[in-house]
């Protein structure tokens, strides 16, 4: 009896795991099934249109790429700097503790709330309008906690013996960080940053909040240009009842997932490549 109960429990657990995996497969298959036929060079190289067979994601694709670069430019120095401060400089004071609690709390704030902040702060107050820069600033704040936390982990994983060796030679704190801690932590930092950026790549809600959901039939050429992005274009198509637009949404999803996959693959490659050299 005990055995049967145990076996049943095991099967339930396996079943649950398989269900999760099955759902992922189903989700991917559904997008592939509906969208693959609409993927073409023309789709990548055309602007959105009222006519499904002419519509493409050129502006969204370029908007997303611009947005990612700007977001990276803002969030990585800020986030890695914060992580260095918290791991290498900060004394264990109440302020440090508050900053750390605050960061893990921020990581749980819904993305749309960042959108509200972006709308009030960047679009209105700083008068950046519905621009790429406003979007990138909003996204940067959104992924900042993830960047800080993952960079902190990477920095923490650098063994103390390296720091001691550097200090013992008379290096200052910054020299130690710059020449030894950061290079050693770099694979982990990069991996974390890429994953954080891929999170931003898929976010739509904050961008809708700051007003990126408009008809854009050009590619941006400066950070102050209005823009659209892949998840927004997908949302736009998905919210139209006409079947063809649904297929376009699926095709857009395939492009978005392909980009995310590429980013994740890059993160994994970086991790594996550098792990070879660093064994403590």
């Amino acid at each position, binding site marked *: 009896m005990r055995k049967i109960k145990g076996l049943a429990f095991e099967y339930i657990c396996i079943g649950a795991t398989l269900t999760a995996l099955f759902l992922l497969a189903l989700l991917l298959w559904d997008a592939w099934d509906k969208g693959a036929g609409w993927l073409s060079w023309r789709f990548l190289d055309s602007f959105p249109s009222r006519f499904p067979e002419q519509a493409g994601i050129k502006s969204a694709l370029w908007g997303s790429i611009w947005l990612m670069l700007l977001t990276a430019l803002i969030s990585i120095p800020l986030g890695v700097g914060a992580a260095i401060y918290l791991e290498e400089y900060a*004394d*264990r004071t109440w302020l440090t503790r508050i900053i750390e609690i605050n960061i893990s709390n921020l990581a749980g704030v819904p993305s749309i709330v960042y959108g509200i902040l972006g709308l009030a702060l960047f679009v209105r107050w700083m008068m950046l309008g519905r621009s790429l820069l406003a979007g990138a600033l909003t996204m940067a704040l959104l992924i900042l906690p993830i960047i800080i936390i993952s960079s902190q982990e990477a920095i923490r994983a650098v*063994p103390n*013996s*390296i*720091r*001691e*060796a*550097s*200090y*013992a*030679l*008379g*290096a*200052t704190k910054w*020299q130690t960080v710059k*020449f*030894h801690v950061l*290079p*050693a932590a770099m694979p982990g930092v990069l991996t974390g940053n890429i994953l954080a950026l891929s999170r931003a790549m898929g976010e739509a809600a904050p961008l809708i909040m700051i007003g990126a959901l408009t008809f854009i039939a050009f590619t941006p050429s400066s950070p102050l240009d209005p823009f659209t992005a892949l998840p927004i274009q997908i949302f736009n198509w998905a919210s139209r009842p006409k079947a063809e637009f649904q297929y376009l949404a699926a095709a857009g999803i395939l492009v978005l997932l392909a980009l995310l996959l590429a980013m994740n693959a890059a993160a994994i490659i970086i991790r594996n490549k550098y792990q070879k*050299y*660093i*064994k403590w």
Partner: protein
Amino acid sequence: MTSAIQTINLSAWYGNKQALTSVSMSLEENKITAIIGPSGCGKSTFIRCLNRMNDLIDGFKTEGEILIYSKDVRYIDPVELRKSVGMVFQKPNPFPKSIYENIAFGPRIHGINSNRLDAIVEESLRKAALWDEVNDRLNDNAMELSGGQQQRLCIARALAVKPKIILFDEPCSALDPLSTSKIEDLMLELKKEYTLVIVTHNMQQAARVSDHTAFFLYGKLIESGETKQIFKKPKEKSTEDYIIGRFG
């Protein structure tokens, strides 16, 4: 004989835990002083005070004076202090970079002109008796060296910033006997130019290499003196007990 290092009533705490109690001793120039004692007796804490490495630990504090060539270390910038007081650690800790970079790092951060680096690297490696083994692969990653070679590289790295004093914190405890004897030979060579302090829990090692020996117990300096005297005729009962292996 001049004393290179002198401590006066040195006490130290990690938070509330006292690690050293009123240690007063004087270490002579161009000699090897061994510091022995059971684990947790404060010997590592003691030498890590000498180059203020313990400053990096939260909640660490000291009382009393430490004089390096008659200058109180509290009034020396730690960066300057560590330049003249080098350290070699228990576990070899080369930087995960090339052999060359490991040695060049110290001189470079101290503003040495880069065209002199090659000469310094060679000189340091020669002094550390490593040059013949690595001169054809200076650009290889230091992590590929054997443990003993890594430790000698760490010694060369310390030499490259031209210290006056070198502290060894159980430098051979992670090494095999052959590598250990190479390091010991090296230390005997180095004392001609440098003042050496070595923490060890290997009594034979202390007896083999050191001129003076200090015995620590429970954070206190029990006795110190010429190594021969300490090992042959210790004044204190507890020193004798420790040396003949009754505890520790």
